């Protein structure tokens, strides 16, 4: 009934096709599509939080405006530029993998991970500065300058949104970092790059989410 030809051991360097796929191209298509379905579910997760932010903003417009002024626009904008550049470097990494430029690909992945680390360091600087002013999430909020409930909601949502985003940054960094060694060793190429592509797609999603977070949290004023 089914063709058992590709149930045999693959030659060294080749990729085995799973039994339920006709060929490698279809398997990669399924892997890629599965990644997009996962990414779409992630966007819905953040969309729910964005909707929550929009609802509270509609309820406390003045407090949200005042609170957003206490976010550092310089750091926020720098982080935006950092993530945009990291998207470029991970796209370049995939491009290099597909063209067989192993070392450039490994270097580009390394740059991406490093930029992610810089992003997280800047966020830590921001969080520490907020803590020093008594800006904590939820019930622990103790910001004397803006004691209103609306300001509390702004910062609670700020921590929730940026914290969840930071977790995604860490996840993406981990995945990309683990890819560096096999990429440099030439495990992936034009015929077999879908894992690197999926790592890059996840990283672009992290950038996409921040592209919308930045104006809402830093440019409202």
């Amino acid at each position, binding site marked *: 009934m089914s063709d058992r030809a590709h149930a045999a051991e693959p030659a060294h360097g080749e990729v085995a096709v799973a039994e339920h796929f006709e060929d490698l*191209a279809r398997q990669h*298509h399924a892997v*890629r*599509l599965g990644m*997009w*379905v996962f990414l*779409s*579910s992630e*966007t*819905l997760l953040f*969309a*729910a939080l*964005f*909707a*929550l932010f*929009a*609802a509270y903003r*509609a*309820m406390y417009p003045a407090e949200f405006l005042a609170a957003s002024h206490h976010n550092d*626009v310089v750091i926020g*904008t720098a982080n*935006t*530029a950092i993530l*945009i*550049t990291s*998207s*470029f470097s991970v*796209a*370049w990494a995939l*491009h290099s993998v597909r063209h067989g430029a192993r070392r450039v690909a490994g270097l580009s992945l390394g740059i991406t991970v490093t930029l992610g680390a810089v992003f997280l360091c800047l966020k830590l600087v921001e969080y520490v500065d907020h803590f020093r002013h008594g800006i904590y999430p939820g019930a622990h909020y103790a910001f004397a300058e803006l004691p209103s409930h609306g300001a509390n909601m702004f910062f609670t949502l700020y921590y929730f949104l940026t914290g969840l985003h930071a977790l995604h940054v860490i996840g993406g960094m981990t995945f990309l970092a683990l890819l560096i060694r096999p990429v440099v060793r030439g495990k992936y190429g034009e015929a077999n790059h879908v894992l690197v592509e999926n790592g*890059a*797609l996840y990283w*672009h999603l992290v*950038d*996409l989410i921040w*592209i*919308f977070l*930045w*104006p*809402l949290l830093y*440019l*409202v*004023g």
Partner: protein
Amino acid sequence: MATRRLGGLSYVLAWLALLVLTAASLGAAQLPLGALAPAVALGIASVKAAIVLLVFMHLLESSVPVRVVIATALVFIVLLALGVVADVVTR
């Protein structure tokens, strides 16, 4: 299955465009746009998102099923946003 392949130059151009749009967004935030400010900010963000999706994430050369998946997500995000806004605004 991929159709056309974008060259390396398109990544560089996309990156530069994203940085320019970021600067534009920052500039627009300084202007006294009043009620239009969030719309302008989100509008620019949407253009940046489109560039990331189409160029970096290769949506321009993606198969139809992938595009259907994204379109579906976008439709439901819009529905969610409309639902929440309608709730809050009509209280």
